[in-house]
């Protein structure tokens, strides 16, 4: 069981608003999972090599050639609010 403060701290970092019920719910659930994963501490891993997940023949580079996106307005269409081709936020910033 995680403390209420710990859950609120994580929620703040993750920018998630939680209701009172949710706080209790996550205290329980997170606590349960964190207890379960403690089993990893028993394993000796000091000498393990670094995990690599990407195939060796993957090439991560591209040529420096600009390719404009077809219609940038498509990227604005999904915005909750926009104005004059900018994304618009309500009056929330100082």
């Amino acid at each position, binding site marked *: 069981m995680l403390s209420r403060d710990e859950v609120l701290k994580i929620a703040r970092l993750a920018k998630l608003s939680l209701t009172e019920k949710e706080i209790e719910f996550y205290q329980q659930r997170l606590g349960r999972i*964190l207890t379960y994963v403690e089993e990893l501490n028993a394993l000796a891993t000091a000498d393990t090599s670094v995990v690599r997940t990407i195939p060796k023949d993957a090439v991560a580079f591209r040529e420096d050639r600009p390719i404009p996106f077809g219609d940038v307005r498509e990227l604005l269409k*999904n915005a909750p609010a926009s104005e004059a081709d900018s994304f618009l936020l309500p009056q929330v910033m100082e």
Partner: protein
Amino acid sequence: MDFNRLEILDLLEGYQRKEFSPSEVAQSLLTSIEKKDGEIRSFLQVRPDVTLDAARAIEKRSSEIQKLPLYGVPIAIKDNILVTGWQATAASKILKNYVAPFTAMCVERLESAGALILGKTNLDEFAMGSSTENSGVAPTRNPWKTDRVPGGSSGGSAAAVAAGFAPASLGTDTGGSIRQPASLCGLVGVKPTYGRVSRFGLIAFASSLDQAGPLTRSVWDAARVLECMAGYGGKDATVSRSVVPKYTENLNESAFGTVRNLRVGICTSWLEGVDPEVRTAFEAAVEKLKELGMRPVEVELPNVKYALSTYYLVATSEASSNLARFDGVHYGYRTPNPKDLDDLYCRSRGEGFGPEVKLRIMLGTYALSAGYYDAYYGKANQVRRLIQQDFEAAFEKCDVIASPTSPTTAFKIGEKVSDPLTMYLSDIFTLPANLAGIPGISVPVGVDSAKLPIGMQLMGRHFDESTLFQVAYCYERRRGALANAPWRGSKSGAGA
């Protein structure tokens, strides 16, 4: 004509012989969906006009049929994969009205091969789940028995194919989300090697684990879809440059020769706790592999018992990062009337994400946070390396590793939601392949006494899908047809 039961191979042959056309097939399937998906709820979006337009367009290219390996084949796409003009919601309220501005590389390749987009299918929200009960829309029902889950997270994709609405669908697999629903719905499901298929256009869950792959009713079909969708494409830095083999080329009589004398690894200790009927069916399947000439070999996978813990730290950490972009600013749900910027963020995300997603975001945030990184994310990655090493060692002794795909058959809707770990344990056999990056295929082996499907999983070396397909193909031929499959119009199924 009943197109619901046709496999891709059947469709291609029919088109070739001009027995029917892509628009006929597409129309028939769309009608089927309209009439029967109300109960199953496999689809989140269909656009019949768009699909039929595409069908008519492909018909104009009928002279090129030889060059279009998926000519006129309708495919359903999981709704966490982007297709221009179609919704991409990840079954989440936070992306409710999102319309994709570009198409995923793997889908683009399918379209280049002549495939038709049939619709977007349901999933556990952001692919987080093993039953599709976490969908922010509604749960999907298993066409074999509609009081059962289809598995998850690609439950919609599995149900659509199992119900006969589509001959094939795309799912994504991060911890088993293609293979497990395939198993629970009596289908073939493939998770390719990590880096075989481009992730460009997949709404990311866990970047080092996610792979898109096919769900189909036959091994040949899955091979055909994978050989078309895989490959580099230039938009993903984690994809192999190697040429994608034509997997279907070996799926014929020659496969039997290749398969004979291959060694199949079994990790007996791993099988503890499996449902007894599943165990029996698995053992019978292994007998069939022996009949094919394969030699069973006992292998050790000493660290797979830590796969669940490892996965739940690695995947959630990466997910917490990948989901940081859903903040109500540039797209997606924004909370009305926020009082300040922090409120806009917290309430948009708090209101937009479902409980399982929030749980995983918080777990991942915790695992990456200052002071906890080494003990959680750092440690989990070290154990991941141990698991990778286990498989490297095992593949010295064998060529494929076999296990049941899921410890149980399809459970009832609502049965496992109360305890997170019970649900997570559904993935016990599938998680290791994602952690090790190796390919895995689930093939149906039969049904249990409740007539629910059981699947066998085969895992192979990196980029050795070829061997997996050949073994699976030979096994499938040896097994024969699956009884009571709902796509053939059985009593409880939707295809009729």
